[in-house]
């Protein structure tokens, strides 16, 4: 019987088979950031251990860094100390580090691929749940805790339990103004926040073959919001073309040899999956969330649910979410006025995301009373967006144009919602307080977020752009 992409990635990294499906896996690469690494480095120091292979780690501070200006001193001394600790650890342990002012700075999940640190066929971990992102390249990539970060540093290995496999077959042409984010939100609404737990999810089918790398990254990134640690796409010509020539990508004869290997990773035609789903994208509508879990979403022209019409076991959960979100049952989603707009995060801060948002923003103005910001995923993305004129479009429309970082996806820096403020956000989590204590988040695509900025409320981007195509 044929093997899946997941099985090939797993089997090629087993150092020692273990009991109960728990194997010792070799870890090829680790991305290191300021929040989940201090305790790991301290564990090494306390035990008198060294890093096994310093060159397999790449460090950058992204979570708590200011995005207003790189030249201003950090206003939060605790956050500044955390960044300084990462810098010191990188220096002391010999790990490559991208400083805040450097050309290589950015969100771990944006710079890893950009710099060719992420490659097909590898295992890649990070003390961050959105490490699922890198599965878009056909890498076995998953988020881990800080203790595991320390284990990888010392041993280059982790004990992991093999997951079941799920294939999501995507077909049909993605309609104009629908984005990969809409695929993710529709899928999560369908299967639930724990619908993929215990599974490694592989996205496949003609619609995946047609999707660009940014879209694949968005889709894999959001896989954790369905409960799965692993989202995968088989590497193909799109992947290779995207990677070729990047700093960390193999070159010369190594490139050819690598591509030959990477081409062998795709699931075999007769591979079996534990679960299969199909999704037709041809009628996919832009989606937005109304609740406090990423599975609480609906098409933008839909309505906030009535708890009373839901299944009995869901009623309390829906009522609680609506109470937190300050929404009335049955109200149209498109009537909901917003205060803030956030375009950014490891989900949607790549150049393709900024281009589509800029298309919506071009020649229009952010609605009065709305504060909107664009936070590119990396210094390189920022520079490219400026060169393409996107930054000018955003600024002219009234968006704030920021430096790279996680920013208002996790609200660990100054970028946060005030209690009760409502935000149209391209980030990944609408959890209570995620964008600031008491803040209210509506997840959506970059196109939809830009449309919300222009209209001042949740809006159907197709209406905003009607007649322009």
């Amino acid at each position: 019987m044929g093997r899946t992409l997941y099985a090939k990635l797993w089997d090629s990294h087993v150092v020692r088979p273990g009991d109960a499906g728990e194997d010792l896996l070799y870890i090829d690469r680790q991305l290191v950031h300021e929040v989940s690494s201090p305790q790991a480095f301290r564990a090494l120091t306390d035990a008198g251990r060294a890093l096994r292979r310093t060159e397999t780690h790449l460090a950058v501070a992204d979570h708590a860094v200011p995005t207003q200006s790189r030249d201003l001193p950090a206003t939060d001394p605790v956050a500044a100390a955390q960044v300084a600790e990462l810098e010191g650890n990188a220096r002391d342990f010999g790990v490559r580090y991208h400083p805040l002012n450097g050309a290589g700075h950015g969100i771990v999940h944006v710079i890893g691929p950009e710099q060719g640190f992420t490659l097909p066929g590898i295992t890649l971990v990070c003390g961050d749940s959105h490490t699922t992102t890198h599965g878009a390249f056909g890498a076995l990539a998953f988020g881990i805790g800080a203790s595991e970060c320390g284990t990888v540093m010392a041993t280059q290995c982790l004990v992991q339990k093999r997951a079941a496999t799920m294939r999501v077959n995507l077909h049909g042409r993605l309609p104009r103004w629908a984005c990969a984010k809409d695929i993710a939100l529709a899928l999560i609404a369908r299967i639930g926040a724990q619908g993929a737990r215990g599974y490694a999810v592989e996205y496949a089918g003609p619609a995946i073959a047609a999707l660009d790398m940014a879209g694949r990254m968005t889709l894999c990134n959001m896989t954790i919001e369905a409960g799965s640690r692993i989202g995968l796409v088989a590497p193909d010509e799109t992947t290779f073309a995207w990677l070729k020539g990047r700093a960390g990508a193999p070159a010369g004869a190594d490139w050819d040899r690598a591509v030959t290997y990477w081409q062998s990773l795709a699931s075999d035609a007769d591979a079996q999956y534990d679960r299969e789903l199909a999704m037709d994208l041809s009628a996919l509508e832009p989606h937005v969330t109304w609740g406090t879990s990423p599975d609480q979403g609906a098409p933008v022209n839909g309505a906030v649910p009535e708890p009373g019409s839901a299944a009995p076991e869901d009623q309390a959960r829906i009522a609680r979410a609506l109470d937190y979100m300050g929404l009335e049952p049955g109200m149209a989603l498109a009537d909901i006025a917003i205060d803030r707009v956030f375009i950014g995060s490891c989900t949607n801060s790549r150049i393709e995301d900024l281009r589509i948002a800029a298309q919506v923003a071009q020649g229009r103005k952010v609605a009065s009373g709305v504060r909107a910001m664009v936070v590119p995923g990396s210094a390189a993305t920022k520079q490219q967006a400026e060169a393409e004129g996107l930054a000018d479009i955003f600024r002219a429309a009234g968006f704030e144009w920021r430096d790279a970082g996680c920013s208002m996806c996790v609200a660990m820096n100054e970028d946060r919602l005030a209690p009760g403020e409502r935000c149209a956000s391209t980030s990944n989590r609408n959890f209570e307080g995620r964008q600031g204590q008491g803040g209210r988040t509506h997840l959506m695509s970059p196109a939809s977020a830009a449309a919300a900025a222009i209209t001042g409320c949740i809006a159907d981007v197709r209406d905003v752009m009607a007649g322009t195509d």
Partner: protein
Amino acid sequence: MEAFTRLTGRAASLDEDNIDTDVIYPARFLTITARDGLGAYAFADRAFRIKDVPVLVAGANFGCGSSREQAVWALLGCGVRCIIAPGFGEIFAGNCIRNGVLPVTLDAADVARMHRAASKGEAFTVDLPACTVQVGAWQPVPFAIPEPQRQALLNGWDETAAILARDGDAIAAFEQRQRSEQPWLYS
């Protein structure tokens, strides 16, 4: 880490599904780099508090979302050593095991009656050698846990030390083979 064998004590009840690690430990406290003393921030934005009980009975998909191990350290800081739920976020469950906290998965009906028992202040006895949870005068309820995880908890094993002690040769052999097959990963 501290080994886990048996414990007896009362339980707190948080009967709500999909409690994510942002709710358990809000992100604004993530700039603190210490592991100790985080109990003060557990559920900081909720009215829910855990006081002097070693067991937490929770809802489905408890600990979903962010990988932050601070969520486990905060619960440990409140004295929690065992969490009972119909299911856990996967990264959170792994973080529990690595900190001597036992995640017990039971079916929803058993968890529902444990919520009621916790609210009444009944005593819970969690027995890892026997893999059972006993509440008051009930028959012990059996639970399953992968044997490697059970052994790690029972012995208080540190994963890093265990790998270094046991697998050094296997890791070196793996690297030697991979270096010849995929040299681009070693340049």
